[in-house]
């Protein structure tokens, strides 16, 4: 792994055990300076644990955590120049907004006058200047969330950790706050490590995403890389919706593979690293598939049902050879929708399909 200066956090082979439970299994990650980095994975996969390990609330069983060149694995939480926005916000209930935001600055030894100026700046950044004297119990959920953010930003940490900070907000507010968070990250230049189990949130906000499953990193990459070139079945399935066709792989060379589709048609398409000959899985995204006239496509099946989604329409097709495929169509009047029970052919551009490692 590269050791250049622009690595903010270098997590090396970190393992965390809770008794017999292995919450993190040899996790290695490089998080770049000034990056919006997201940890994405299903519930219980170890996202919170990894954040707590970086913040210093959990001792690690093995490995190292290098923050800008310094191993911080043995430092106490208060000795680490990272701050956390906790999922429950946990604003100090006996302090008003200003006192909450000032807390970290005072502990760092700033005098009250300077701290007060800084609090003003940060509250402006999160658009809460008018609420400086309120108590936490007098704030809405969204406002509490911003105070928690301001409180963590005030001491200008080198890295900001955010544990599902938007999950308690309703959809509209969540979308607005997403944009704000991105803007704040741009303005401050602080490295963000953001935890979520919401793939849409991850795709729209992040510079890079680490997909985690059962305490192991499955893939790291930009939203586009992870969506377009998933490494394995888990990633393909977890990020967006995909169709997995049972195929038999015949040839593999330089990132390309030949395979035989159900029904016998042979195609050549991109293959994930580690794919091997024999029976395998081909991932095709629902929006890449079109329904064509009989005899013109790559596979054949009968329409099982329609799912109406407003802007889109999903057509589920049962393949003649078994298995089913979802086709996503735009809900416009020009498109002819095949009827349930109708025999259809499905077509897709092989370049947009991908052979996966199981």
């Amino acid at each position, binding site marked *: 792994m590269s050791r250049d200066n622009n690595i903010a956090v270098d997590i090396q082979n970190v393992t965390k055990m809770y008794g017999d439970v292995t919450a993190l299994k040899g996790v290695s990650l490089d998080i770049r300076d000034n990056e919006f980095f997201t940890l994405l994975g299903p519930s219980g996969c170890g996202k919170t644990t990894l954040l707590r390990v970086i913040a210093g609330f959990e001792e690690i069983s093995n490995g190292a955590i290098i923050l800008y060149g310094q191993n911080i694995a043995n430092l106490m939480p208060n000795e680490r120049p990272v701050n956390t926005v906790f999922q429950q916000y*946990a604003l100090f209930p006996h302090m008003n907004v200003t006192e909450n935001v000032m807390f970290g600055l005072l502990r760092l030894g700033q005098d009250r006058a300077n701290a007060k100026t800084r609090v003003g700046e940060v509250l402006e950044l999160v658009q809460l200047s008018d609420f400086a004297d309120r108590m936490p119990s007098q704030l809405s959920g969204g406002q509490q969330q911003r105070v928690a953010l301001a409180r963590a930003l005030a001491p200008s940490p080198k890295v900001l950790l955010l544990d599902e900070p938007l999950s308690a907000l309703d959809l509209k507010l969540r979308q607005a706050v997403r944009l704000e968070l991105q803007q704040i990250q741009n303005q401050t230049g602080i490295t963000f490590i953001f935890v979520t189990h919401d793939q849409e949130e991850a795709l729209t906000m992040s510079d890079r995403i680490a997909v985690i499953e059962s305490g192991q990193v499955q893939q790291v990459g930009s939203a586009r890389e992870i969506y377009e070139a998933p490494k394995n079945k888990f990633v393909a399935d977890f990020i967006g919706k995909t169709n997995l066709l049972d195929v038999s792989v015949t040839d593999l060379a330089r990132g390309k593979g030949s395979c035989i589709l159900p029904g016998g048609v042979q195609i050549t398409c991109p293959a994930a690293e580690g794919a091997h000959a024999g029976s395998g899985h081909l991932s095709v995204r629902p929006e890449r598939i079109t329904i064509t006239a009989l005899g013109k496509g790559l596979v054949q099946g009968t329409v099982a049902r329609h799912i109406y989604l407003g802007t889109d329409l999903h057509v589920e097709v049962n393949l003649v050879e078994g298995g089913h495929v979802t086709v996503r169509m735009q809900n416009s009047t020009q498109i002819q929708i095949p009827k349930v029970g109708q025999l259809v052919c499905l077509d897709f551009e092989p370049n947009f399909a991908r052979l996966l490692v199981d």
Partner: protein
Amino acid sequence: MMSEKNLDLRYFTGFLPLTLLCLFLLYAPLIVVMVYSFNDSNSITRWDTVSLRWYYDVFYGLEAPKFKAAAINSISIAIMAATSATIIATLAATAMLRAGRFKGKSFSFALINLPLMVPEIVTAVATLIFFSAIGFTTGYLTILIAHIVFCIPFAYLPIAARMEGIEGVYEQVAQDLYATRLQAFRLILMPLMAPGILSGFLLAFIISLDDFIITNFVKGAGIETLPTAIFGAVKQGIKPNIMAISTLLLVVSVGFVALSYFVGQMGEKANPTTKPKGD
């Protein structure tokens, strides 16, 4: 709906008379004492007219110096015992609830709270034997030590209940924001604990102020607290001034218990464990 109503305890035959009987047994003696403390008569049973004569007697009568000395002992002991017990109980609760899991935790819990279950007479005898075994002369100091000890569980209960209600995440946030563990304790946990601590102090204070059995065993000759002084006076026949002094003690006790309760309520209202509200 009808059947639900019929199942309600309040509609059982005899519920009302039984309730009234219980209330009567509980409060009749107290009310009699309170009412007769305002009696002008020398007799404790024959009603004369309303007067504050016996209250005057408590403060300025023949026995006034004795009661005054006893009251000063009682109050000074109660203040010191409650303060010490509250400090010890706060530290114990912090260790029990904030030090993570440790060996013998449930044993420690039992150890702290067992005195509540042990018959007071047993504690009294044991304490006396202990003091004489180590050659301690009985007096003010032995009363104080004994009071500190038996007040600890009473102070511990409200303090621990409060601390249990405060999520550990606040202290973690504080540490994340560069507070040392001590600062997190002092600046975050202590202020959030304040109602519990005050409530524990008041409870310990009143327990100490009211104690008779243990005090009577360990006090030795020549020193009295208010309850032992009252007991001593009653042995020579009940005079109406006892009713006046009992009423005063009752008012103080009820006042403190009520205060302890309201302090606890106040803490609940400024509930620190409130989850973030949705919009």
